[in-house]
């Protein structure tokens, strides 16, 4: 989707908010927001791509106003309602609906630590051979889907070069919409700064993105 989350190359966001001796969390609520989001994923009602899409789908003005962990917690609230884990009314009231039964959490402390250590590898075995080879010239497609895509606007229609083949990975653009993992070959594709930004790009500089085969055409 052409959302405000797709920020690469935008202007006007000002100076970097650098902080000396920055703590890992700014307040206890940030810790809890992180942990709640990771723990609720264990219900298996969504996946990491759907989580990212839930954050992108926040109203643009809210997205820009929220801090990072506010984006997380509001997206989590929306996903929990959407997937029936809590009702909108329960969220408003802050307590379970009268007469609702109590569930058994899928993660205790031991299982939570094991899940963090295991992670969620995205590589998959596929039968198809990769369509592109390292060194090959490609063009990122010019597409503007209303749904999730990991091909940012600033690279669309631009010509680049394949510099790595990462194997086949879960295709985020499909998985975010629960349309299946649809694994596709994933490549690191290098674009020159000149190609992306015109004359203001320095000739020796470049930007490399990870793009899936459906994002690319031979050029």
């Amino acid at each position, binding site marked *: 989707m052409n959302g405000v989350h797709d920020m*690469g*190359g*935008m202007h006007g*966001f*000002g*100076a*970097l*908010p*650098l*902080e000396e*001796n*920055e*703590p*890992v*969390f*700014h*307040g206890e*609520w940030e810790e*809890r927001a992180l942990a*709640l989001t*990771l*723990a609720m994923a264990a219900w298996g009602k969504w996946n*990491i791509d759907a989580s990212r899409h839930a*954050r992108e789908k926040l109203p643009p003005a809210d997205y820009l106003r929220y801090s*990072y*962990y506010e984006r997380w*917690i509001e997206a*989590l*609230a929306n996903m929990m309602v959407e997937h029936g884990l*809590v009702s909108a009314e329960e*969220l408003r009231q*802050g*307590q379970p609906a009268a007469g*609702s039964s109590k569930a058994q959490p899928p993660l*205790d*402390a031991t*299982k*939570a*630590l094991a899940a*963090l*250590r*295991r*992670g969620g*590898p*995205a*590589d998959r075995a596929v039968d198809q051979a990769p369509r592109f080879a390292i060194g090959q010239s490609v063009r990122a497609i010019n597409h503007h889907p209303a749904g999730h895509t990991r*091909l*940012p606007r*600033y690279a669309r229609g631009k010509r680049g070069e394949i510099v790595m083949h*990462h194997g086949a*990975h*879960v295709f985020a653009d499909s998985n975010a919409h629960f349309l299946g993992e649809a694994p596709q070959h*994933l490549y*690191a594709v290098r674009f020159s700064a000149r190609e*992306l*930004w015109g004359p203001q790009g*320095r000739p020796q*500089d470049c*930007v490399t993105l990870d*793009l899936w085969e459906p994002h690319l055409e031979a050029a």
Partner: protein
Amino acid sequence: MHDESKHEHGSHGHGDHDHGHDHDHEHQHPPSPAALRVKAIETLLVEKGLVDPQALDAIIETYAEKVGPRNGARVVARAWSDPAYLERLRQDATAAIAELDFQGRQGEHMVVVENDARTHNLVVCTLCSCYPWPVLGLPPVWYKSDAYRSRAVIDPRGVLSEFGVELPEDKAVQVWDSTAEVRYLVLPERPAGTEGMSEEELADLVTRDSMIGTGLPLSPEEARS
């Protein structure tokens, strides 16, 4: 220069950090709307039996105390010290990093990109804030900021200058936008005057920012001061 990695929690779960001050400070103010919102959601989820508070505590302890940029510094120091390790890192960074027991969520597919005399690497995630958690911990605020996400790809040298890093004109800047589940770790150049230093001493030169590409490693003199 902006850097905090030496003050972060180490990989051994202890250290001279000042994490607690943040909490003390927080308690002097009424809770923010975000804090109230998160508290309300946590209470609801615990009452509904959807989360176990002990699982939340275990997750928080992991990222507050166990996982942080000292992990990545150990990887870099070993790569500087051991040519065979560097070669394994080039061939399969995920496996080489797992040799040091760093692995898991947001580090499932690691690639190491090497700075050299001609190229400086810089990592960003323009679409969200993807970051290699097992080696660097959770990302700092600036990495997640709209300013960094928007500017790193179009104006990397302007970004670097805000970190006090000025590169020679003829050095190429190679930006890596983490658009998939591959996570990039920058291998900075080994500083001059570090011959004969142990792996442990070398690790003290490796800052968090130097592994993202927004900083350079400390010189032995800077590390002593």
